Every structure is written in C-alpha cells, then in structure tokens.
C-alpha cells in the first residue's frame, strides 16, 4: 500500500507540474468565464450559463485526462524510467495502481478547480451557488475514474497516439450506445443482438451525465448515484485488472 501511495504521489506531482495541464486549465477558465457573455446574450436566462459552464468542466476534464493519461505508462517505458522502478521491490501491479490513483487525483483536482470557477460565475450571475453542480461534478469524477482506467489499460499495450484515438472513439461510443440500442430494437435480428452486446460490454457513460437535470433543477432519481458509483467502481477494477495482467505479460 505504501508503495502504491508513493507512486501515486509521484505521479500526481508529475501531472500537476506538467505545463500542458496549465494550458488546459487556462482554456477551461476562459471557456467557463465566457458563460458570462452567454448570460448577457441570453438576457439573464441562467439555463445557457449553467449548461455552457458544466459542458466546459466536462470537456476540459476529459481533455486533461486524455493528455495526461494516454502516455502515462508508455512514456515510462520509452524513457526507461520504469526499469529503475521495477528494479526495486515494486510489482507491476503497484505501478499500474499508483499511476491510476495519482492521475485520478490530479484530474479530480483540475475538475474541482474548474467547478470553483463555475460556482464563481453562477454566484456573480444570480447571487447564489449552484449546489446541483457539485453532484454533477461528482458524477463526472466517477466517469473520469473509469476513463483514466481505460487510458491506463490502453497505454500499457499501445502507443500514445493510438491509445488517444481509441479512447476518444470509446468515449463517443460510450455516449451513443443507448440511442443505438433504441434504434437497433426497431430493426431487430442480428443487429439488435450485436448492438446489445456492445451496449453491455463497452463502457456506458450516459449514466454519469446528470448535467441536464442540474441545468433545469430537476430532481435526480436517488438510485442513479448508487448505480453509477457501482458501475464506475466495477468497470475501473476490471480495466485495471486487465491492465495489470497485460502489463505482467509484457516483456520489458
């Protein structure tokens, strides 16, 4: 456990020192602050301000995850720094888990930072905080945890560029499988079975999206949080487990 914590701490430090993270944060801050302009354009209507702000947090959270996560293992192999780590009494599983927790902490911190800017914008607009957004951000961190596990899994077997492309494709697929399944139901037959297989096997990310509820202050069904948490936890464990298995087999 100590070893995992040490690697996580190191990964976190490395991530927060990465200049690319500051560039992403700068763009994110600009995007979220531009909601003020949207607020003026919509003549005080808070819906566009909230939806743009939350969209900014989501998009830039994903961008940060992709930039930091797509090369996280591969980079260590390329730079040969991993050999020094593995020469010590450190298992490959420790490396994967440490990298995961470190990166998750860095991305979660980035997301929270963006959420603070968002709350500042909302406070400026209507003199109160958007408490629902805190819930939306928590759901987003769950999604990010799954996504980072996916990136680490991909990064442990394929080069960064391929891993980025695969992650982006899986991200889109993860959001479109529910509508694809609804369409396939109408068609039926083998297409329906194939889409159903993809629907259950590939990460289904729609359940982490409560932004539309938050934007309209609609009540969020209580069970959604528990289901989303369990789903993220189980999928993350599966991906990290597979990453460890593949990484153990890999010849360095």
């Amino acid at each position, binding site marked *: 456990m100590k070893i995992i914590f040490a690697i996580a701490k190191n990964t976190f430090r490395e991530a927060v020192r990465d200049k690319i993270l500051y560039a992403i944060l700068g763009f994110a801050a600009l995007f979220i602050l531009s909601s003020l302009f*949207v607020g003026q*354009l*919509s003549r005080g*209507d808070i*819906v*566009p301000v*909230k*939806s*743009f702000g*939350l*969209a900014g947090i*989501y*998009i830039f959270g994903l961008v940060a995850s992709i930039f930091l996560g797509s090369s996280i293992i591969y980079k260590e192999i390329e730079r040969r720094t991993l050999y020094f780590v593995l020469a010590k009494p450190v298992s490959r599983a420790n490396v994967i888990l440490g990298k995961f927790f470190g990166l998750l902490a860095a991305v979660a911190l980035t997301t929270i930072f963006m959420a603070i800017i968002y709350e500042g914008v909302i406070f400026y607009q209507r003199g109160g905080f958007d408490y629902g957004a805190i819930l939306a951000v928590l759901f987003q961190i769950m999604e990010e945890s799954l996504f980072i596990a996916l990136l680490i899994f991909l990064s442990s077997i394929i080069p960064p560029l391929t891993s980025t492309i695969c992650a982006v494709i899986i*991200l*889109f697929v993860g*959001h*479109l499988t529910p*509508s*694809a399944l609804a*369409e396939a139901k109408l068609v039926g037959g083998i297409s329906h079975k194939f889409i159903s297989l993809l629907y259950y096997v590939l990460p289904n*990310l*729609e359940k982490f*999206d409560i*932004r*539309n509820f938050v*934007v*309209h*202050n*609609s009540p969020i069904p209580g069970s959604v949080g528990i289901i989303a948490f369990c789903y993220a936890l189980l999928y993350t464990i599966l991906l990290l487990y597979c990453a460890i298995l593949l990484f153990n087999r890999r010849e360095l």
Partner: protein
Amino acid sequence: MKPIFTGVAIVVLLGGIVGTQGLYDSKKIKSPEIDFTPSPKLVKSFDLGLHSALASYLWLFKTRTELIKFLFLSKEMQETAYARYSRNLNLINELDPKYSAPYVFSVIALPGSKYAGGVQASVEIGMRGVADADPDWQIPFYLAVTYHLELKDNINAAKYFDIAGHTPSIPEPARRFSINYGIFKTVREQTKQIWQAIYETTDDETMRERAQVYVVHFTILDYLDAAIKKYKNMHGRYPKKLEDLVSKKIIPEIPRDPFGFEFTIGTDGDLRVKN
C-alpha cells in the same frame, strides 16, 4: 538577430494579417447556405450527452438570429424560411425540451410575422412549451394573448392566463392582469361559467379548488357590481370608493378576494384592480 528587427518583423507580420483579414471582409464573400438540419437522434448520439449546452448554443448563436431575420423577409420568402426555422427549433426542442427561451421567443414573435401560418405555429409551439419547458410565465401569457387577440378565443385565453398567473416568478403586474382576465363585464359571465363548469366536472382536486376560488372571485365582482348599481340608483352617481357602499349600508362589509386583490371604482362605475 537584433531585438528591434524582431519587434518590427512581428508588427509588420501582424499588420499584414489584420490587413488580409480586412481585405477578405471587404470582398463580402458569402459561402452558400446549406439548408440542412441533422436529425435530433443523430445529433444526440454524437454530442457526448451535452444536449442542454448544444441546445443553448444552437438557439443563441443560430436559430434566434434566424427568427429575427425571418421577421423581416417578404411574405413569399417567409413560407420557405419558416420550414427551416421550424426544423431547427424542433432540433433544439428535442435536444433540450425544458429550455424555455426558444418557446418564449417564438410565441412572442410569430403572431406578428407576415407568415400566413404564424398564429397557428405560435399556438402549437406555445402549447408544446407549456407542456414540456421549465415553468416560464411568458409562454402561457403570450399564448393567451394570441388566443385573445388573434383567435378571439376567450376560453383558451382564460385557460392560459390562469396558467401564467399561477406560474412562480411571474411579475406582479402580469400576475394581476392574468388572474383578472375576464374581470371586464363583457367576458366576465362567460369566464365565470367556464370556471363553474370546470368546478363541476373536473376529477382533479387541485383544479377543482382552483376553479372554486375563481368562482368566488367572480361572484364577489358580481356582488360588488350589483351594489354599485344600487348605489347609483339611490344617489344618482357612482360611489368614489368601495367603502362608500358600506357607509351607506348597501353592503355590510367589503368581501375579501381569495386572490388577495383589492378593487377600486372607476369614474364610469367599473370595478378595477387596485395597483
């Protein structure tokens, strides 16, 4: 390289960029407009779940401007332009049915357009908005205005003014007007009968209570009107204020309106809501 030379080079290059942009703008090159609206299902599949943000973006940066431009088109051009506006609005409504601004804007703007189907379109969009959007008093209010002014349909006007009057965050003057739609003698009896019929037929307990309150509201108005008439017959002039009816013992006391409104008497003897 000398720093002065670098500075000059950057300024010259920036100047060139600005100049080129200005030159491009002066040519007023217009790319051909593509009349294409993707299906809501397709858009929803690829927007990463950011339906609400995309709906806001499409409305604020595209469709709202399109509606403003539409209002200034000739009658013939409005026919084709409306089809495109309707498709784009439908996409926004499908992406985020609760986003109220597109419904509000459409309900206000369309009846005033030269487009022959403007009123009907406004009614359809307004009804969709009342059913699906976040509660926004402007949708039922302007829908009721359309029913009253354009379609001369007092029954539906009363229905939507009632919805507007009970929508949270409605400004007080609009609430006062909405609830008191039907106060004028010409439509009061009809409006009272509508609420009476709702009271007697509805199974919905909340609606029944609401109808009862309206019936009491209109009964009070009739009662005060009759008292004013009696005062005129007795004294040959209208009372200046409602208290005169009590002091002259025509009524024992001024009844309390269930909506909390206070009334005043006009010079013509008509009852009006006090501001």
